[in-house]
């Protein structure tokens, strides 16, 4: 057995898990809030969701910039198709981490509700108010989130398969702490 004990750095781990936590939070809130009847609380939750989205966009920028300068550890030995599939999913996840907040921002603008970060910093509207485009962007935003859920399920499922069935270091090397 190859002992690939090469682990992700603590920065990579922190960015990964912070991102996971943030995405799950924003996504959960996103699905919850759309069904609410209009109330001050609904408007608050919408704003919080948008602030979370802006924060996650900034976080993925940071993460991507950091990643460009730091190579991840070499992959754990596995069949080539698995490595390719993992890489493909990683690329798509990065793409979605950018695309989901972006479509949320555009959708907000098209629906006529500017995003004001933490109620203080107005984020410029790239597009004007256009209800039809707003509805289309909402469909795109929601669909991308379903795609994200599917990819995260595959990503986490694969990590668990490596951990429990293959008993290799794939998951362990991304877990916090040292072992």
């Amino acid at each position, binding site marked *: 057995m190859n002992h690939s004990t090469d682990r992700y750095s603590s920065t990579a781990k922190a960015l990964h898990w912070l991102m996971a936590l943030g995405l799950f939070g924003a996504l959960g809130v996103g699905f919850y809030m759309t069904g609410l009847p*209009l109330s001050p609380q609904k408007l608050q939750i919408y704003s919080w969701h948008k602030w979370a989205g802006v924060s996650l966009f900034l976080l993925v920028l940071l993460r991507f910039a950091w990643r460009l300068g730091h190579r991840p550890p070499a992959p754990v030995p596995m069949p080539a198709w698995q490595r390719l599939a993992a890489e493909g999913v990683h690329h798509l996840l990065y793409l979605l981490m950018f695309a989901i907040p972006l479509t949320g921002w555009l959708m907000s603008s098209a629906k*006529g*509700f500017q995003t*004001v970060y933490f109620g203080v910093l107005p984020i410029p509207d790239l597009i004007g108010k256009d209800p039809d485009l707003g509805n289309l962007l909402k469909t795109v935003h929601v669909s991308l989130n379903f795609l994200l859920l599917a990819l995260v399920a595959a990503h986490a499922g694969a990590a668990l398969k490596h951990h429990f069935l293959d008993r290799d270091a794939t998951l362990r090397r991304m877990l916090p702490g040292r072992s």
Partner: protein
Amino acid sequence: MIKQTLGAAALAAAVFALPAQAVEFNAVQADKTQIAFTYKQMNVPVDGKFRTSAASIAFDPAKPQAARASLEIDLASIDAGSQEANDEVASKLWFNTKAFPKATFVSNSVKALGNNRFEVTGKLSIKGKTLDATAPFTFKQEGTNGVFDGAFVLKRADYAIGEGMWADFGTVANEIQIKFHVVAAAAAAAKK
């Protein structure tokens, strides 16, 4: 004789021309008239507008003190930024549009501030409540039309617009920016 007739005609023309100089703008063009507003929810500015259902104005820039204005706003015509908001503001907590379908403004006085700027004071009635309101506006003549542009801040709590769970200003701010744009044709032009 001919000279005299000409002279009389010239005099008559001069005399009749005089009232025409004092142009009164009094034919409101409803399609060009708009009441717009901006409110803030969670500090996000949201634009909306109303259609005016009836407006009458009599304004002569040379005699602003004699000016009169009354506006009637059809509250059901509101565009509050989204369909969800439009439905909400018709409810009892906001305008209670069923019981109070219209907002009205009737001027008491207009005074000149100089530089084509004026100030109108009058009674603003919304949701069964009548309060004094004052708004500065500018006047501009465009062809045969008089264009009035003004703005003022309305505090929604003064008229109980947004009661109950909406009464707190933490989500929807108390101050609503109101902008009005009224176009009225001159009397003579209106007769054509």
